[in-house]
């Protein structure tokens, strides 16, 4: 079913977009890649699974995931980014955050084991669906799409309408100028990491709810694709992350539909390479300072 695959692609894409928003927020503020982000996303799923296993409702699991992942983001910022502010330290910060993700993966395996962990949510809730014009749509998918939309609107309002958002934009524009104007850059960076990681955690909960289980490999298989998504949309650009995410999800779903499974995994990266070569700033990005030496 083509329509069904397109819907799948959009749902997949909205999760990519949520993770990519985190990558892009951090990149916008610090000009650095946070390699731990994909595994924070993975960890969010595990937190939700554990909370649900205690008998708590889904919203409580999601809330717990947001808070725990947000705090993890703060830890990553402290150990891997606080000291590496200069432009020359881009690789160092990326590798340091990668070390964080190694620790996170291993800690997850220590706590929950290496096998996939199932979500204790009534199967009926996961598979309940409604049929519209011959197309079977699971409520879970509608929920994910709706929640993503709401989150994006909230994020947009946060960035454009609040004091915190204004500070984030100021630091993204120029950290030095922002600091001179009395903005606490460290505080803004922490806020950015918290929001970014919270979104990733929520995306982890969504994926767990949709597939019914979580594994420790998700960060390296699913999460890291959002890195490509961010680059496709334009690094540091929120609209870009959303459009790039949906695009990547659709391409992947269509590749599966037409029986190009392996190519589907590659498509996101090929698309990213093509975009970066033709338009290094991405589909939406303007000319940024590091395009020139």
């Amino acid at each position, binding site marked *: 079913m083509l329509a069904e695959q397109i819907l799948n692609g959009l749902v997949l894409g909205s999760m990519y977009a949520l993770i990519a928003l985190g990558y892009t927020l951090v*990149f916008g503020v610090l*000009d*650095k*890649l946070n*390699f731990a982000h994909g595994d924070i996303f993975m960890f969010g799923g595990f937190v939700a699974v554990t909370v649900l296993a205690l008998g708590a409702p889904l919203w409580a699991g999601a809330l717990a995931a947001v808070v725990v992942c947000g705090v993890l983001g703060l830890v990553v910022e402290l*150990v*891997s980014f606080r*000291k*590496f502010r200069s432009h020359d*330290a*881009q*690789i*160092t910060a*990326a*590798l*340091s955050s*990668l*070390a*964080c993700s*190694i*620790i996170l*993966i*291993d*800690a997850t395996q*220590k706590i929950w084991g290496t096998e996939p962990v199932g979500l204790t949510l009534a199967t009926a809730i996961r598979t309940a669906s409604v049929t519209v014009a011959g197309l079977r749509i699971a409520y879970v998918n509608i929920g994910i799409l709706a929640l993503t939309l709401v989150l994006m609107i909230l994020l947009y309002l946060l960035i454009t309408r609040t004091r915190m958002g204004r500070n984030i934009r100021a630091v993204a524009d120029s950290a030095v100028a922002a600091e001179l104007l009395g903005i606490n850059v460290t505080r803004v960076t922490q806020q950015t990491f918290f929001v970014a990681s919270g979104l990733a955690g929520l995306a982890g909960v969504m994926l767990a709810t949709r597939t019914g289980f979580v594994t420790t490999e998700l960060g*390296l298989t699913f999460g*890291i694709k959002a*890195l*490509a998504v961010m*680059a496709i949309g334009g*690094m540091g650009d929120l609209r870009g992350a959303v459009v790039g995410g949906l695009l990547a999800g659709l391409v992947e779903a269509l590749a599966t539909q037409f029986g190009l499974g*392996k*190519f589907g*995994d*590659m498509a996101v*990266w*090929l698309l*990213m*390479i093509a975009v*970066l*070569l033709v338009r*290094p700033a991405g589909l939406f990005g303007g000319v940024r300072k*590091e*395009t020139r*030496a």
Partner: protein
Amino acid sequence: MIQDHIMFTGINILLAWSVYVILLSGSVSFANGAFMAIGGYASGVVTTKFGLPLFVGIPIAALGTAAFGMIIGLPALRTRGIYLILVTTGIAFCVKNAIESIPYVGGVRGMRGLVGAEPWHVWVLVAIVGLLLWLLSRTPLQRILDATREDELVARAMGINTVYVKVIAFGSGAALAAIAGGLYAHYMYVINPEHFGILVSVFVVLYVILGGTNNMWGAPLGATVMTLVPESIRGLHEWRPIVFGVVIIVLLLVRPEGLLPFRAPSARVRDARDG
């Protein structure tokens, strides 16, 4: 067991130098794990499918991978910094996926029957490459690389063809990684795409950064430390990845410039000093 350590330390030193060579021209490559894979598979095809000896297979693999590296480097090196990190990461993913979908080399299951590499082969190569890099650091070529790395615009203004320099460096790094990959494959007997995942590429860059990028000795030191540290904490077997991660974070925080941060004096300085 000891033989394994000697072998893998040597391989990792070669890989670290393959990243260092590219880094000399100011580019970062997260694709060297992919070049290693291409080298391993190409030499494996030459030895197992065509029945030629290993010392024929490795040069063919090295040349082929260098050509591949230069062809993709030509467009890819237009980008720099984070963009280049992303492009090379993408290349690493694509190469791995591509190999997985080629039945001729075994797809996901991989290739078997690869034999013939001994630890001393690797260490002879380490010595040769080390000597070449040391000689390089004493020639004007080093200054050309330095200029290209530090400020491309100025380098171009001085008449240096920076595209040429960067592509050649990229190709050399790819060839070196391919040699390491060929030796690795023929020591392991079996290789599959999982051996050359993205983490391999990233770890190799990590060796160089941990060791220090200012001179040619940082890369081998970083590679040696990072190959042997996980072994020396074998007593903590269960906690190995966590300890490894913590060691990386602490080293980066304590020595952000690497373990060996000194700069080798340039040939001109030495000439002036020695009269």
